[in-house]
């Protein structure tokens, strides 16, 4: 049965006690919007991640290797599919509206997918560094997420992302133990992808971050970012690669790696759809969407199947203000 809360204080007390919000609850609009925007960006990122990798899927070296890569891509697109459904159930946009906003450059996706994978080494770096960063973030969300449908989907996503990361790690190790040309290729990929992967966590969380207050996220950006640095810096240097941070140092006192100051301008540019590959990526996706419109038109039976034909907007309008 749908629940409602008289005041925001009451709602926040519910969240602080570990309460889980469900799709049919009369949640406060700002919470609904915040959860929606967060899940929409996650869904968009799964899809755009698939598009970043698709350039290299047909070139995967090896028949069974290609099957493994296809399985990974299938998972990623499957995640996007599930996430769009969860987001659509919030009643703010249908899946079609979300996709059209994405292809028109009106909504966001993770910074890393505004870059182009230019070599096979980039593909491995994405599977290794970027998937790990995404996994760390998702684990932190899952731990204490107050929105029930998202938390349940994340359980499955995290299990599958764990496999992807191990696949990426396995490929990275083959290269690390491989020929000088392979190692050089991966070092160049690392030079391109280390900072974008690190920037994926975002700048330090603000004290009044509602995502933290409403238990949509459970850990601060800087904590997650540091966890990634402490894992990957020693791993990469251990394999003989150079971490492309000129001020990288080991702090004997804190017993931690410090990558030095972080330039957030590249992240800001991707948020404004001005990343190195944003224009091409979005334009190609939009062009393709347009080229296949006839299929969707022919299959359409009047309802927006993307959101299971459920009209959540009317439900939202009826929701009592809190």
């Amino acid at each position: 049965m749908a629940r409602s809360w008289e005041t925001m204080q009451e709602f926040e007390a519910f969240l602080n006690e570990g309460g889980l919000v469900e799709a049919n609850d009369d949640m406060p609009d700002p919470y609904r919007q915040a959860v929606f925007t967060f899940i929409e960006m996650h869904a968009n990122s799964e899809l755009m991640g698939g598009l970043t990798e698709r350039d290299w899927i047909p070139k995967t070296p090896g028949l069974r290797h290609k099957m493994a890569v296809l399985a990974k891509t299938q998972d990623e697109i499957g995640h996007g599919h599930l996430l769009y459904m969860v987001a659509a159930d919030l009643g703010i946009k249908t899946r079609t509206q979300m996709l059209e906003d994405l292809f028109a450059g009106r909504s966001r996706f993770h910074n890393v997918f505004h870059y182009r994978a230019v070599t096979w080494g980039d593909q491995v770096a994405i599977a290794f560094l970027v998937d790990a960063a995404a996994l760390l973030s998702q684990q932190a969300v899952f731990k204490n997420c107050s929105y029930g449908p998202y938390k349940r989907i994340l359980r499955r996503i995290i299990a599958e992302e764990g496999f992807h990361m191990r696949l990426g790690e396995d490929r990275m190790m083959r290269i690390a133990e491989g020929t000088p040309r392979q190692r050089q290729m991966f070092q160049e990929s690392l030079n391109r992808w280390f900072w974008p992967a690190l920037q994926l966590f975002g700048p330090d969380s603000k004290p009044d971050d509602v995502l933290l207050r409403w238990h949509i996220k459970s850990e601060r950006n800087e904590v997650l970012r540091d966890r990634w640095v402490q894992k990957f810096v020693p791993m990469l240097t251990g394999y003989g690669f150079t971490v492309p941070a000129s001020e990288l140092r080991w702090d004997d006192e804190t017993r931690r790696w410090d990558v030095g100051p972080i330039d957030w301008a590249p992240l800001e540019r991707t948020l404004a759809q001005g990343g190195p590959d944003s224009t091409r990526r979005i334009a190609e996706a939009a062009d393709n969407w347009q080229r296949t419109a006839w299929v969707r038109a022919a299959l359409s039976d009047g309802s927006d199947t993307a959101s299971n034909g459920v009209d959540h907007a009317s439900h939202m309008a009826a929701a009592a203000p809190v």
Partner: protein
Amino acid sequence: MREFLLAFADDEHLMGQQHTEWIGVAPFLEEDLAFSSIGQDELGHAAMLYELVLELNGLETSDPAISDPAIDKLAFGRSSSDYRSCHLVEYSTRHWSEALVRHWIYDTFEELRWRLLIDSTMTPLASVTSKALREEAFHRRHANALLDKLLEAPEARARIAAALKVIAPMVPGLCEPVAGEAEALAEGVTTGSIADLLEPLTEAANRRFAQLIDCGLVTTGFIGGGIIGGSQTDANSSDTNPQDYSHASSGRTQRSEFFDPLMTRMREVLDYDPTAVW
């Protein structure tokens, strides 16, 4: 026997490869998922068939550390004249409608082709066949479910007819056996020639695309008889259609113009460092 198995393996390999090109750019997410799943199945069939070729040569294939590189050598490392793929799977589709039509034709044919092997005297081939047939049922159901709906809609119908005009002439080549098939027939490795599948495939296509025949977009027998007329304008009319790939009767020894660019693309990483393990 090698040539007989390679013809099937090469078809499966290139068909799976072609499906990978449509992932992420299909009309909706469910189709991206379907093409990645079907692509995996076809590549899996190819790997199993290449393994049988290796076993003919006495290679022990139970250890992937040994069999995977050997499979890759067969899949990517032969000279183009040694491949026995048909032109249908070498062709680079330009529209999703072409990919869908090819998917239906190929999988309808593939199911018939596997059925010829279910009682094979080559026991490992018969066991690969029963696995493959289970998967093929899903592939066919998928293609049929889409076509059921799309053929009801006028614009989609015109686009599918245009795609058929490009794909249909390559179908006789799909049903063309290699010279080595005679040996496979004599030894009971296969119970029929794939040449005999052209007729049931054509009949199935006539039923499947009956709506197109009814509206005059294509004529009966369009598969066996090459390019089909039809008075309406081509729905993908901005295209120049590729050269006519109608039956070349070369025993699958001739590669199409699409093969070399496809193989170069597939080998890009392998060629970057031939000594590397990826």
